[in-house]
């Protein structure tokens, strides 16, 4: 690991002031914020991230409570809450099972104790060519150098939302739940506080995949807000992996809906393990809304969700897998018994 200067922010004001050199979190940013450290320290050891200053945000972590507040307008989650604290919150499990699932099915118990929600949504891709600087071509790491994954080993690369500059996959699970549930964020920065819909946080590659979010220098996510609605209880996260635990998705689906008899209403679908950024399947939702949820309709919706997919050889299988995952997630959500307590995900 390269040498760096270690500083600790006492509060949010100091954090945003010290963060003037974070840029937008690119690999060559001079400063990086440290929260749980599970992405940052890993990528610094790999010599992918090379900050000369690390700004520890440990003092901003919620103390005395788990960072969860369930109110009538929805769920308020501190961005400094750990994944474990939120995953284990009884009210989250009861009223927002999709949120609890997405956190429980991610990483390992140790990592979930360390990682914060804010850091989680900002985690970097697991693309092996990004993570290994001995590969020269990576537009995300070295802008303009090309993409090694296109035309070579790309079994777990994205099939939605890519462009010729980058086919890396967004690796997170929680972000897929947030985009499905129309979450928004509170962000503190050098120019004050602003609110941002979560769907606007991650930006398309647009030939510049080194810029991953619309956060500006020194900006820190402080809170997530998940609006309440008749769809949050009948919600789940289905994650398909190469092994049954402690693994990234090769395909995942976040679903939330209200059910009236057989009719699905206000369906929300998020897709993970297959897209460049957290992905909302609006086309599929339009197919489903207001109609009886039959298998034929679910298949039609899944096909609509994957309409624009572009595969690259090793990841051809994802087009079919993703559709099956969507259909299964819809039927598992339909079959949920909202009166019975759920076992662990």
């Amino acid at each position, binding site marked *: 690991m390269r040498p760096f200067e*270690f500083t600790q922010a006492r509060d949010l004001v100091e954090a945003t002031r010290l963060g003037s050199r974070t840029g937008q979190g690119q690999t060559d940013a001079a400063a990086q914020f440290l929260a749980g450290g599970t992405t940052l320290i890993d990528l610094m050891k790999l010599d992918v991230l090379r900050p000369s200053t690390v700004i520890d945000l440990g003092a901003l972590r919620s103390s005395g409570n788990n960072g969860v507040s369930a109110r009538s307008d929805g769920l308020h989650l501190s961005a400094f809450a750990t994944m474990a604290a939120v995953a284990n919150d009884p009210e989250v499990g009861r009223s927002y099972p999709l949120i609890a699932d997405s956190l429980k099915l991610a990483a390992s118990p*140790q*990592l979930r104790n360390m990682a914060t929600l804010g850091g989680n949504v900002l985690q970097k891709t697991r693309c092996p060519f990004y993570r290994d600087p001995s590969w020269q071509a990576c537009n995300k790491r070295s802008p303009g150098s090309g993409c090694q994954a296109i035309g070579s080993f790309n079994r777990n690369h994205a099939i939605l939302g890519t462009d010729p500059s980058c086919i890396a996959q967004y690796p997170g699970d929680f972000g897929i739940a947030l985009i499905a549930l129309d979450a928004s964020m509170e962000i503190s920065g050098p120019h004050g506080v602003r609110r941002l819909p979560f769907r606007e946080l991650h930006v398309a590659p647009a030939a510049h995949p080194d810029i991953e979010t619309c956060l500006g220098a020194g900006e820190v996510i402080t809170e997530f807000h998940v609006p309440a609605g008749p769809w949050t209880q009948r919600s789940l996260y289905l994650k398909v992996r190469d092994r049954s635990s*402690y693994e990234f998705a090769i395909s995942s689906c976040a679903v939330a809906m209200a059910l009236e008899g057989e009719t699905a209403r206000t369906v929300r679908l998020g897709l993970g393990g297959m897209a460049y950024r957290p992905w909302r399947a609006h086309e599929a939702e339009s197919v489903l809304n207001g109609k009886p949820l039959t298998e034929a309709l679910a298949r039609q919706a899944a096909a609509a969700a994957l309409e624009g997919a572009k595969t690259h050889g090793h990841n051809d299988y994802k087009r079919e897998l993703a559709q099956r995952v969507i259909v299964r997630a819809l039927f598992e959500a339909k079959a949920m018994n909202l009166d019975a307590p759920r076992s662990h995900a």
Partner: protein
Amino acid sequence: MPTITRRDLLTSAPALALGGLAVAEPPTPASTARDSSRVSTRLIVNGKAHDLKLDPRTTVLDALREHLHLTGTKKGCDQGQCGACTVLIGGERVLSCLTLAAATNARPIVTVEGLAGPGGELHPVQRAFIEQDGFQCGYCTPGQVMSAVACISEGHATTDEDIREYMSGNLCRCGAYPKIVAAVRQARDQMKTT
């Protein structure tokens, strides 16, 4: 004749091997002009406070092993993937290889050396691993034991399925998993009755 333990031998081996010509430096990278700024860090390990001046790059894992000579905590992958370095910080199991020592803010750390009672009697989890033969080479065992202690106290050891899920952050390349599950199950039951 004094008893020499395996640990004494292992911790003194580098110096012996080098015949006193040089003592191996801790694996924190060589000093450069820029890292001259050391960070004053207080680590509270197994109830004892240590005030150290550390290169900011030093992880809790390296601080434990190389500065405090507590070699029970193992370095496996050093990338947060294997769980061999699991310790408790502030009562929660975390990966010491991905935690900067300077960022622990004096939260109490418990390592495998801190589990036994004052008279040296083993923790129920340690006993269970021995009685159930929950290891082969033993390299992952300190991490498994620390993770199991937390898994039980979190209430995530209710069923075998739960144990497997909530112990999945600790890899065992010898494949002792069935006996690790049995050890966690035994310790869970014993800790309930004591």
